[in-house]
């Protein structure tokens, strides 16, 4: 508060009063500031603000009157204002706000932690220092000791306050108005530069081009200058911004742009390596961070780590522990603690855990910035926006990685299973082959003695030697039994080959009419023996078919044999051959005992014999395989074998084969 030396006491008094008006507002303002810092939102309610405003206004009005300073005496260039009646009011007003401010600031210092506390501390110290000194020199010295000489240096104290605030701004991010400061500098420079250019142009123009200082000339010069300024404004501003950026704002970057870039990187890859690697590289580059690492927790237990140099990095146990703390840690803001010790020891400046839906999936660990500066509010804001995006991207990449790992495992399992199946299949094939060989050898072995028996018994039966009736019958029975044995072996062999799909059919063109005739002839002795009338009906003279002739013979023989077997004496068996449905049809009908409904279903199955013990025939011999083989033969030849029957009346077996191909 320096007093201008004015000519009259009245003027001096006036100016003193003006100063008092202004200072009346100062302490309330500082109080409001104290309530707010270090944050940016007003720390008191609107009502309080209004009260303060009104009260201040009242005091200001009082200051203008003679109630505060009533007069002023000037003697030997020393100004001594005379306090009025309301001076105590003023003093109270001032002290009250000062007291409140101090109280608020002290409370804040005690309440806040970390960097906020540091900011407040510096600011408070600055203010306190300033005011203590100001009070001392401008008030105590003047009033108590009557020394006014030092009042002159009063204003310099504010430098202390400003200096402290500046320090808080620069070192501790106070109010984070560094951007504002820089922009203000830019703007000021801009104004200065443009103004100079305008002046320069005007002067040059008027001196060099328009020598005559007419109105018209002046207008023209002004217009041209103005136009030039207008066009120069934007480019000039950009240049200055760039300049100031490089000078003041060394670590500058565009948050929006960087976030967009990182977002793009994160969206462009599902591979954990690429995603984390590329985005970290960009981040470290742009923010000029010395060092950074990313840890991602995996299901397998071993965390996945990215570091700028593969294989080198901080100790995993350390980084894991810090990340598992679950909260963002900034070195400067931490209280002294074991964690802070760890950060100091490992030279870590920032720990940012990555959390998705309350699940901690990993974290980012950063070293200090290259410039040695702390992480600015811009940086911290960037991180807080980046963290959820990065966390989700990492989680997705991790899921993708785990799925592809699973896929690899799955593939391996499939390959293993396939190999096992192949081996099993190979073994089965081996087994099948062995079975075939066995059956082949077995049937061959069985047939040898059967052939001997057949020949010798036949020899006895047809020999010249005389045998009595009983012996003949005995031998006959043996011969028949042996035939059955041979049939059984044949059937077993057929069945085995059908089952393994090895039944060889050698198709040839033949006349079915002829074949039916042959079979009829073969079985007529047997039919005659049983007094059964065997008839062959040829509906056509010739019926060509393409199939394995031997197998067809076997089939027809089977049907005829059955017909005779299951028909009692005096019955009839009719074999009919015809051409129908673009093929050849043969039916073998008998007047036998017939087949009941439930037996029909089992008729063509293996060993599906009809129990005839109750019938007039008694037990009928047979292997039970004949019809199974016959049906298979029919089907493998592209035809079908069907039966219709009525118990007591008889059965009709119908074979159909496709015609000549």
């Amino acid at each position, binding site marked *: 508060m320096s007093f201008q030396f004015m000519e009259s006491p009245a003027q001096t008094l006036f100016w003193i009063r003006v100063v008092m008006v202004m200072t009346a507002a100062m302490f309330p303002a500082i109080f409001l500031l104290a309530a707010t810092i270090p944050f940016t939102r007003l720390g008191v309610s609107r009502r309080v603000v209004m009260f303060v405003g009104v009260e201040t206004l009242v005091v200001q009005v009082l200051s203008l009157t003679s109630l505060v300073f009533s007069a002023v005496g000037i003697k030997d260039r020393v100004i001594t204002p005379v306090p009025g009646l309301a001076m105590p009011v003023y003093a109270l007003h001032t002290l009250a706000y000062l007291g409140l401010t101090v109280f608020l600031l002290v409370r804040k210092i005690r309440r806040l932690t970390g960097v906020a506390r540091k900011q407040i501390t510096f600011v408070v110290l600055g203010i306190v220092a300033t005011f203590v000194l100001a009070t001392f020199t401008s008030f105590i010295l003047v009033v108590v000791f009557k020394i006014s000489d030092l009042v002159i240096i009063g204003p310099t104290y504010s430098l202390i306050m400003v200096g402290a605030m500046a320090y808080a701004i620069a070192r501790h991010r106070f109010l984070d108005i560094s951007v504002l400061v820089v922009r203000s500098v830019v703007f000021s420079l801009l104004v200065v530069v443009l103004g100079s250019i305008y002046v320069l142009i005007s002067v040059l123009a008027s001196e060099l081009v328009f020598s005559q200082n007419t109105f018209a000339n002046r207008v023209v010069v002004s217009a041209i200058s103005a136009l030039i300024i207008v066009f120069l404004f934007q480019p000039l501003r950009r240049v200055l911004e760039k300049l100031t950026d490089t000078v003041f704002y060394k670590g500058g970057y565009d948050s929006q742009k960087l976030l967009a870039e990182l977002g793009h990187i994160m969206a462009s890859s599902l591979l954990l390596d690429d995603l984390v690697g590329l985005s970290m590289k960009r981040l470290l580059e742009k923010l000029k961070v010395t060092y950074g690492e990313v840890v991602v927790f995996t299901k397998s237990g071993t965390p996945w780590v990215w570091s700028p140099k593969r294989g080198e990095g901080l100790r995993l146990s350390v980084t894991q522990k810090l990340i598992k703390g679950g909260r963002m840690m900034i070195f400067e803001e931490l209280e002294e603690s074991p964690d802070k010790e760890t950060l100091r020891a490992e030279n870590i400046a920032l720990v940012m855990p990555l959390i998705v839906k309350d699940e901690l999936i990993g974290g980012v660990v950063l070293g200090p910035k290259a410039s040695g500066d702390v992480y600015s509010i811009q940086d911290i804001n960037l991180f807080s926006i980046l963290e959820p995006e990065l966390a989700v991207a990492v989680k997705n990449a991790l899921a993708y990685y785990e799925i592809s790992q699973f896929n690899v495992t799955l593939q391996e399992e499939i390959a293993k299973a396939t190999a096992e199946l192949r081996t099993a299949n190979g073994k089965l094939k081996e087994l099948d082959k062995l079975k075939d060989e066995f059956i082949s050898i077995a049937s061959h072995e069985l047939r*040898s003695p059967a*052939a*001997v028996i057949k*020949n010798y018994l*036949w020899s006895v039966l*047809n020999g010249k030697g005389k045998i009595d009736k009983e012996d003949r019958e005995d031998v006959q029975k043996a011969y028949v039994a042996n035939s059955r044995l*041979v049939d059984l072996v044949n059937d077993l*062999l057929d069945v085995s080959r059908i089952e393994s799909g090895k039944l*060889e059919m050698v198709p040839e063109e033949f006349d079915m009419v002829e074949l039916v005739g042959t079979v009829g002839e073969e079985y007529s002795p047997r039919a005659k023996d049983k007094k059964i009338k065997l008839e062959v009906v040829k509906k056509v003279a010739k019926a060509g078919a393409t199939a394995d002739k031997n197998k067809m013979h076997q089939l027809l023989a089977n049907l005829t044999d059955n017909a005779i077997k299951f028909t009692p004496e005096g019955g009839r068996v009719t074999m009919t051959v015809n051409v129908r449905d673009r093929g050849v049809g043969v039916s073998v009908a008998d007047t036998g005992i017939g087949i009941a409904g439930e037996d029909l279903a089992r008729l063509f199955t293996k060993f599906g014999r009809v129990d005839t013990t109750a019938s007039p025939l008694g037990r009928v011999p047979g292997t039970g395989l004949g019809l199974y083989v016959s049906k298979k033969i029919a089907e493998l030849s592209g035809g079908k074998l069907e039966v219709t029957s009525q118990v007591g009346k008889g059965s009709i077996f119908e074979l159909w084969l496709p015609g000549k191909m």
Partner: protein
Amino acid sequence: MATTSVPPKILLVDDDVDLVGIWKRYLVEGGFAVETAHDGEEGLVKALEGGFSLVVLDAMMPKMDGLAVLEALSKQPPKQKNGPAVLITNLSRDVVSAQAMKAGAVGCITKVDVDPGAFVEQIKKFVQMRGAG
């Protein structure tokens, strides 16, 4: 054509002694001269002598089976010409039949399917097929 008094010679090669015995009996009754062998090697030696109207070979024999004998015969002609060859077997007919035909036999008989009478009939048919020689 005048009938010769020399009966046609049949070479019967089979390791089943009993079967060979009874067949020989019936073949002789049927008017044939029969020589026998009990394995492929012996059979080949006799076949190479030649002069048989029909060579009957068992498909499965020790030392050398019927098909091998046929192959050997086709490579090495006998001293005297032989008639056709027939294969006899107890294996599945269709399996052996195809192989037999390929090797140059004219027929295949399943042993267990024929009784002595039928066997002799079949032999007679085969001999007549190519003419006695």
